[in-house]
């Protein structure tokens, strides 16, 4: 049992223990290492000013790190065991070589040349996120730069100059991070420790100490959970990190899933997609592009790249938010969840899992391990809707999944799930039963809308008023009709 986190930052090794392990990464960088280039603005993963590159050992076993930009303000130090972290300071030249005149990277140079910075406060985050995008996509087009930087807010430039800088980078060689920081020696140092269990306490006094346990296997997780049923499971921390920063939540015992390899991976067969609970949204984004274009659309506006790189499907499900982007889809697919505890394993239908606001059918000691998403039959028409104030990097004002299984124009079965209109994501049973056996017409869908609004209980909040949500609840049914029956479009009538 190890009581330290081992990692490299900008090529230098660090052992982090005690209360430092519970710091957010951005606080550790700024307060402990005095690396103040990483800025903190929102402390909630919405602005990207704190972006750093997190390198993890490639699963292929090659002597390289795989680098992804993440938001360091909602990541904890204890989640970084075995990583190589590169901050903005680590990009300008290689600090292993005492280089007093830092040689700028292409991204840095073109950000300067193209006036990509004005006040400069968001700039380190942009530079890191851009560098990260180039790690995985050597020649991003305009659209890639736009999609790739949705997690970074800039209030000064209007972004045009930043995109220009990105496009300049495309035509140049730049050192990949693995060249700037050869991974072999770092990995040689880290690999022997990767299978250690980690247990760290923030303080010697057990009455005030926080505990983090970071195991490697499901068995270790369930064993610990059986002994410590109040332990807070943490994977991506994209929500927990925010709650922690805003002083809303401070668990005494944490159980970190980041090193449990069994929980990763997505497997596809003809009948279903089976995803490990720790599969990230980036994993899904890649996978669904061809196989599930509708879901891909929703995944691609799920948070930002920084969030998708660490946020997990399991976290989204267990968090049980009524506005969770993924839930309406999983509801109408009639997905299933696998839970394992020390003593048992069970499968729960997702439609039965949520009981009320943040109330779920989770038993003490249980761990969500897998999500099973059945592949929809050919005759299913599926549309997913997410309406938000801003298209990207926003939380939904209203979400919907509408699936009609059709035989010609006849609706054989209807599956409708709405989010942000009640304490949990709702299946609209009455609307579904009305639709069953009806012909898919504009009038049918209009009537369905009138029933749908009787089944939902939206509230007025910061993301919209009741009447707005009621109107959307009606309109998406009509939109579904027009989208799936284009030949009947109004202008053609």
């Amino acid at each position: 049992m190890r009581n330290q986190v081992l990692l490299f930052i900008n090529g230098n090794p660090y052992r982090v223990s005690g209360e430092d392990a519970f710091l957010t990464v951005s606080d550790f960088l700024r307060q402990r290492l005095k690396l103040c280039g990483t800025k903190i603005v929102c402390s909630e993963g919405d602005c990207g000013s704190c972006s750093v590159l997190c390198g993890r050992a490639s699963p292929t076993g090659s002597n390289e790190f795989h680098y992804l930009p993440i938001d360091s303000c909602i990541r904890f130090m204890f989640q970084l065991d075995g990583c190589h972290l590169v901050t903005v300071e680590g990009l300008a030249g290689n600090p292993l070589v005492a280089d007093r005149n830092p040689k700028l990277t292409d991204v840095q140079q073109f950000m300067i040349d193209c006036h990509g910075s004005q006040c400069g406060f968001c700039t380190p985050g942009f530079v890191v996120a851009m560098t990260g995008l180039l790690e995985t996509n050597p020649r991003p087009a305009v659209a890639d730069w736009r999609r790739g930087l949705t997690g970074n807010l800039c209030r000064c430039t209007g972004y045009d100059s930043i995109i220009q800088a990105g496009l300049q980078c495309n035509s140049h060689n730049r050192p990949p991070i693995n060249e700037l920081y050869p991974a072999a020696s770092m990995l040689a140092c880290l690999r022997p420790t990767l299978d250690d269990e980690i247990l760290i306490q923030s303080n010697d006094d057990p009455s005030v100490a926080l505990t983090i346990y970071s195991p490697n296997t499901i068995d270790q997780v369930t064993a610990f959970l059986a002994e410590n049923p109040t332990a807070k499971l943490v994977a991506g921390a994209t929500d927990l990190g925010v709650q922690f920063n805003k002083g809303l939540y401070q668990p005494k015992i944490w159980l970190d899933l980041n090193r449990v390899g069994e929980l990763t991976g997505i497997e596809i067969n003809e009948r279903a997609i089976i995803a490990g609970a720790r599969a990230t949204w980036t994993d899904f984004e890649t996978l669904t592009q061809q196989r599930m274009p509708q879901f891909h659309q929703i995944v691609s506006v799920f948070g930002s790249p920084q969030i998708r790189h660490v946020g997990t499907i399991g976290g989204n499900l267990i968090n049980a938010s009524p506005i969770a982007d993924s839930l309406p889809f999983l509801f109408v697919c009639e997905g299933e969840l696998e839970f394992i505890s020390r003593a048992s394993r069970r499968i729960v239908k997702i439609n039965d899992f949520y009981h009320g606001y943040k109330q779920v059918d989770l038993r003490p000691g249980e761990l969500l391990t897998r999500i099973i998403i059945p592949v929809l039959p050919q005759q299913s028409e599926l549309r997913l809707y997410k309406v938000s104030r801003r298209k990207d990097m926003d939380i939904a004002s209203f979400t919907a999944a509408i699936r009609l299984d059709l035989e010609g124009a006849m609706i054989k079965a209807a599956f409708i799930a709405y989010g942000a209109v009640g304490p949990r994501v709702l299946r609209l049973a009455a609307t579904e039963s009305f639709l069953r056996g009806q012909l898919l017409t504009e009038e049918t869908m209009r009537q369905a809308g009138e029933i749908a609004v009787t089944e939902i209980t939206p509230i007025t909040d910061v993301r919209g008023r009741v009447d707005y949500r009621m109107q959307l609840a009606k309109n998406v049914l009509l939109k579904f009709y027009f989208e799936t029956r284009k030949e009947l479009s109004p202008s053609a009538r």
Partner: protein
Amino acid sequence: MNDHPSSKKTDVAPALPYRLAVGRTIPHDSAVGHVTGTALYIDDLPRREDELLVGFVGSPIASGTLDSIDCTAAEKIPGVVCILTVADVGPHNLFGPLFADEPFLANQQLLYVGQPVVIVAAESAAALHQACRLIKIQATESEPVFSIETAIAGQHFIGPRRQIRRGNPDQAIRFATHRLSGEFRSGGQEQFYLESQSAIAYPSEENQLVIHSSTQNTTEVQTMVAEVLGLSLHQVVCICKRMGGAFGGKETQAVIPALMVALVARRTGRAARIVYDKDQDMRVTGKRHPYLCRWEVGFEPDGVINTMKCDFFSDGGAAADLSTSVMERTLLHADNSYYIEHVEFNGQVCKTNYPPNTAFRGFGGPQAIAATENIIQRIAESLSMDALDVRLRNLYGTVDRNITPYGQLFSGNHLPKILTTLEQTSDYRRRRQQLVGRNAEDAFHLHGLALTPVKFGISFTSKFLNQANALVNVYTDGTVQVSTGGTEMGQGLNTKIRQLVADEFGIPYPAVILMATSTEKNNNTSPTAASAGTDLNGAAAVAACRVIRDRLSELAADVFSARELGFIPSSEHIVFANGLVRDSRQPDTGMPFAELTRRARLERIDLGARGFYKTPGVDFNRETGRGNPFLYFTQGAAVAEVCVDRFTGEMTVPRVDLLMDIGVSINPGIDRGQIIGGFIQGLGWVTTECLVYDSAGRLLSHSPTTYKIPGITDLPIDFRCDLFPNDDNTHCIGRSKAVGEPPLMLATAVWAAVKDALHQLAQDNENAGDVNLSLPATGEEILRCLTQSRVDQPPFL
């Protein structure tokens, strides 16, 4: 740049002549620091060993009286060093830029949720946060004022009602062929600078204080700290190296955090630092003023407006701050770009129980221009005209119809040319024609198009603010330090001044450095605001350079004189160029600038100077609403096309064309950045940025999760930005023009295009009334209008 002036080259002719710096696209002077993370902001400054972290506890209610404050539990937290309330402040608790009406710490009356009540200073962040949570404030609530209407009904006003009036509007409107009237609302806007409000105070000898502040206005911070703490001005130094954005939000509102650390430093004798977190910053600081405009317009069948009457009411929040000046600028911009014969613009600031609203890029101008463009759209709708034709009919003339309602001659009017140019380059007419067909064919989207102009007056409308001083120090290696009262918030002021100064001495750009802004070097300064930062501070810096250059010219004249060749000393012939100083009569002679500065010192010539500039010929009488408030006008126009989802109200902006007049640009790269950045910020104001409060007056949209500024995908895919070339702005430094604020108002075109799209739907429906689209046109607001215009008709057509 290899040809650094300190190099000991004695070649008379350098291999490559230095290009003039002015007019070139030179990167921001801190760009290297930005991209490497080495540019320091307040919270990045190293901590002093004795330093305290400062925070505060705010009012739990929007309106009422303070009953008691219980700090007993907080005081017991280890590491808590002091807890201060109004009792610790002394007699001068009230402050304000225009009137001293804003309490620094709440005294009896509670005015808005989050209003600072208790200051806590502690040795660690953990102790500070724990202590703040333990402080209990008891208060008795009274009836709050949360809307402009309630304020009007109860006569809760700040300052007098102001008016600009011309002709005989009451009579003229009765004779107009057509009349329309209505109400128009525009929402507030959070500045959303990324670096939150922050300050550090260092106590010093003889009761002096050194304050590092993220402020647009070092003199304001110095003055308010001195007044509230009972110090003299010479005991307080305020320094600002740079800001991580400001946009007006740090013109006055940097004062409270600076006061907090100043008070703690005075009380404890220790360094003190405060850095608001984003949520706190958004909750307690002022924003762009929400406005209500009640309007009436009289016009002719050809679209010519003969009368316009607007009553503007702004939500000033709980104290004056800059609200009356903001309203003044509203009244001065309600004409936007149009000559209107009979005019009555009235303005009244309302007092409500929100944080005092303040400056934000545009400063009342955007609210006026949006209100006027709404009227133009309404006229076009009612006459079934292209709104561009209504605009062109009413546009200011170049030889006549060129007097503003407040009596200033609008000279240098490029608007007719700008509009017709943009009309062509954007292919406006053809796209307009296609719109009807496109809307009939598209079952899913509504398309809209609009072209709107902007004319923005440059100068502070308070005459005394139109001044600046600068300090220029030349060193004996030929390098130069420049200090001005202007502050750098990302807008590139320092870069532009470096360019101006480099050219004054004919030296390469890197030989000039802009120093941190400090009241120690530049006293009695104006805020860096009103887009006038470069106009004022650049001119002052150049004035200082000329003083030094005159002294050096006399020396050089002596050095280069050759009586034997008939050249008597003539300073008029001394030229500073290409890193050399020469006598223009003797092209082969010359001396590196550095060499001349070294000689100057030996000859006991002063190589430092202060420069001073005051804007000539501006003044405005706010009592009569008449005068010549502006030195000149920056102008421009934008065409925006929008695409609205008929079912959800979601909106995208597929194409935007901007054309902006900025005179002769000092730095086109920087100016382009200001134009595009300003436009996108305006895009946020007119579309997604929505301040939402609960019924108790608490801001719900207090972080980027809930308050949506434009993201990168909100930049229109087809985005074209051009500069309109002209060199007639002889009033201003290098014939340049101020560019900070005007482009923000170009985004009015996006709002007007949404209005146009909605009208395309409404005009097919006889039963639909006017779709009274408010600003911002959020998806929710658009869907409301879509639903309203579809009443009694088959949907989605």
